């Protein structure tokens, strides 16, 4: 992966490098840098041509001037060499001069130049002595005339002929210098021969000037055609033409270079456009991929979030399941306990029912016996009253005394008074026993039959109050605030048990001072409610939520099972009802039980 990234980076760098080098190459090629050297080269060629012209005119001047400075025939050549060297070393000309056409042109020029140098050099050599002799010729002729004039007693005619011949020869030679023809050369040769012949007749002293002039004329005869030839040859040397060819080639090259530059300009333009397009494309591509990355990122984040949520949900669900399980377990345990409790209660109820039944019979006959006793004693009283009324009359005095004495002794009057009272109290007592037994039966009766039935809750509450009355009356005053209740479909014994639990708890919440317990009942269309309120110690907030938990108790060990409220909660829930608690520490606690009048499940 890393290797790949490096390779692609390398590839990218190479690509960028090659693109850049193509760009630079095109830019380089599109620069018409040729033009700079072109102008220079053209200028150099022009200057060389100019020097060539100067050279040529210097040569022509040298042809006609006697005492001539030959430096102008040398200096242009130096300048031309220097300029040619410059032209050769011009920047960018090296590739050009390697081309065959150029090599030819350069070789041609150099050949022409070398030819001209040689010809001019020879021209100088020959021209210098030719001019000298030509210049000397008139003076030489004069010398001869002077010399011959000095001759005395000579053949004047011959002398004059020699003089005129040399003069003619001089003039012919000068003419020959102007128009060089073979005829004239022949004439001059003839003249020279004549002079040589005539000279022989003169004294030796006079032969010297004639020899001199002859030599010079011979020289003219020899050198003049040579100089003319050289001049013709010099003029024929095609330096200017060669330079023109070079100039033309320069023009052509320049044009080609310009065209090439234009072409490369165009290429550069196209390439740049392509590059820009590529850049744009890459930019768009980059943006797109960036957007894609963003999108994927967002998707990832949301997936992550979802995952977390799902985990949370699952955790929550798990927690809930766990709590449900816990609750179920608790409920199960509660049920077990309730079962145990109700078993206990059931057996207690059966016991109580049994006891009540057994007690009922004695109560019955005690009660009926007491009624009979009351009746019997009334009748006895009547009898005794009749005996008392009859005593004075019937019974001897003595006996009478005895009787009176006995009566006083047994306090008959008190007995007669007290017995009815006793009987009445006994009857009261037995009726109370009967009622208790009846309550006991009422309380426990339903335990035997766990059937749902319509029951009068008020009656149940009263029965329960009776059962706990003994405990209650020592500790608190009971305030009853009842509203009429309808018949409620319930398991009455269980509701009784709830009420009893609440009352017992309320009693136990009382401190040393005598408290007050308020029992309220009420009903609306579908619900009945029972409230047990005390002004006891109250329940702290932290304990409040645990009070319905099984085995939760604040009572000393042995005094409470911790089952009461939990059992009550279970019972009320089974009835589809609610049990609420509101408590304030030091102020009191209120339990409120709400029960539906009709059970949904029976419907």
């Amino acid at each position, binding site marked *: 992966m890393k290797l790949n990234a490096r390779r692609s980076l390398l590839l990218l760098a190479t690509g960028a490098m090659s693109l850049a080098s193509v760009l630079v190459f095109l830019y380089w090629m599109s620069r018409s840098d040729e033009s700079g050297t072109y102008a220079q080269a053209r200028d150099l060629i022009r200057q060389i041509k100019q020097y060539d012209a100067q050279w040529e005119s210097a040569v022509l001047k040298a042809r006609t001037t006697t*005492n*001539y400075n*030959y*430096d102008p025939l040398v200096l242009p050549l130096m300048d031309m060499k220097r300029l040619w060297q410059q032209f050769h070393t011009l920047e960018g000309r090296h590739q050009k001069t390697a081309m065959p056409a150029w090599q030819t042109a350069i070789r041609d020029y150099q050949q022409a130049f070398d030819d001209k140098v040689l010809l001019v050099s020879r021209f*100088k050599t020959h021209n210098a002595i030719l001019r*000298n002799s030509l210049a000397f010729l008139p003076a030489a002729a004069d010398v001869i005339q002077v010399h011959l004039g000095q001759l005395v007693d000579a053949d004047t005619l011959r002398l004059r002929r020699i003089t005129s011949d040399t003069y003619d020869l001089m003039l012919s030679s000068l003419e020959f210098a102007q128009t060089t023809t073979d005829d004239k050369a022949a004439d001059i040769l003839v003249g020279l021969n004549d002079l040589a012949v005539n000279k022989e007749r003169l004294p030796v002293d006079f032969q010297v000037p004639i020899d001199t002039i002859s*030599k010079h004329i011979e020289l003219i005869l020899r050198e003049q055609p040579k100089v003319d030839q050289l001049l013709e040859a010099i003029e024929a040397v095609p330096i200017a033409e060669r330079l023109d060819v070079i100039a033309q080639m320069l023009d052509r090259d320049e044009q080609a270079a310009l065209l090439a530059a234009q072409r490369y300009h165009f290429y550069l333009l196209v390439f740049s456009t392509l590059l820009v397009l590529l850049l744009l494309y890459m930019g768009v591509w980059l943006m797109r991929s960036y957007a894609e990355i963003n999108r994927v990122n967002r998707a990832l984040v949301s997936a992550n979030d979802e995952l977390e949520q799902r985990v949370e949900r699952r955790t929550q669900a798990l927690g809930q399941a766990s709590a449900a399980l816990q609750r179920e377990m608790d409920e199960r345990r509660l049920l077990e306990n309730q079962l145990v409790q109700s078993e206990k209660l059931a057996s207690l109820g059966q016991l109580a029912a049994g006891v009540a039944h057994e007690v009922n019979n004695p109560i019955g006959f005690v009660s009926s016996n007491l009624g009979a006793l009351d009746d019997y004693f009334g009748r006895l009283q009547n009898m005794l009253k009749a005996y008392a009324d009859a005593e004075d009359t019937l019974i001897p005095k003595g006996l009478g005394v005895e009787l009176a004495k006995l009566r006083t002794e047994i306090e008959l009057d008190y007995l007669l008074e007290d017995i009815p009272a006793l009987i009445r109290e006994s009857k009261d007592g037995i009726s109370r026993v009967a009622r208790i037994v009846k309550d006991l039966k009422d309380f426990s009766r339903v335990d035997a039959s766990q059937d749902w039935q319509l029951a009068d809750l008020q009656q149940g509450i009263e029965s329960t109050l009776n059962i706990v009355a003994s405990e209650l009356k020592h500790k608190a005053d009971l305030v009853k605030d009842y509203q009429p209740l309808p018949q409620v479909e319930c398991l009455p014994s269980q509701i009784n048990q709830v009420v009893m639990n609440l009352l017992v708890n309320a009693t136990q919440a009382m401190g040393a001072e005598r408290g007050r317990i308020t029992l309220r009942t009420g009903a609306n269309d579908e619900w009945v409610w029972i409230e047990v309120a005390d002004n006891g110690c109250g329940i702290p907030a932290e304990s409040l939520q645990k009070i319905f938990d099984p085995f939760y108790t604040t009572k000393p060990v042995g005094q409470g099972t911790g089952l009461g409220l939990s059992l009550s909660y279970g019972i009320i829930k089974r009835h589809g009802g609610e049990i609420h608690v509101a408590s304030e520490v030091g102020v009191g606690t209120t339990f409120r039980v709400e029960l539906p009048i009709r059970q949904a499940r029976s419907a």
Partner: protein
Amino acid sequence: MPISLQLRIVATLLVPLPALALAQSIGGPLTPLPAVPKLDPARVELGRKLFNDRRMSPDNSQSCADCHRLDRGGADGQARSPGADGNPLAVNTPSVFNASLNFLQFWDGRAQSFDGLVHLVSGSATAKDNDWGAVVQRIANDPGYRSGFAEAYRQPVTAHGIEDALVAYQRTLLTPDSRFDRYLQGDTSSLSLEEKYGYQRFQEYGCIACHQGVNIGGNMLQKLGVFDDYFANRGSVTQADKGRYNVTGDPEDLYLFKVPSLRNVAVTAPYFHDGSAPTLEAAVDAMFHYQLGRTPRDGDKALIIKFLQTLTGQWQGKPL
């Protein structure tokens, strides 16, 4: 157009004419020596050291200055200087002074302008090449030259550098301020009447046909023996006597030699390529006979020699 204005125009045009005519008449085909060119002093100094360094000869025996003695007119006064092998060289040693103004170098003109200012004096062509390589190496091994070249050329010692330094030095070897130069520059009093006559004869007899230009010679080749056979008369013709023919192989170039400069001619005897003329008189005689084909009138040769003696310039402020 009024006549007066026309006259004034003509007068204005005519005023410079006498001055031009005078300049022409004074100088003629001769021109004064130019100023010493301004060259890099470091290079010139290097050239001076090389010029006087015996290591420049293949066998460490001779320096350039041994033959081209600046105290002897730039030559050594000998007909033919001894070479490295002790034998006389083929031709007379020309003066090094003003040599840079010559269009051609060497008697046979085998080099143009500066090319010939550096040369080795003996041996065959290949031997010279080898020797030259050895000389360059020898110079390159010298720490003094190394630092000198590094300073003057910013590069190590090369054959080209050595040549350039020598050329630079020799270009400074000009002898200005000859009396004739002063005359050319307008100081007509610098020549005596006789000397002026000498110059007039110099022109009249046609010496000036070849000895002209800035260097009074040195700008053309001429055949030695135009009117008579110099070599037949002298005898014992050598290869060197064939002159330019030795360079070109063209029979037309037989006996062609560079026309030597006449500057400092009075102090650079002996004369000619073979050093055969020990005095100016002998040289002028030979020139009249072989080159001019004329016999000077009485006294003209002396006048010309007097003129030639005004051509001696100065070196480092002192006449040669």
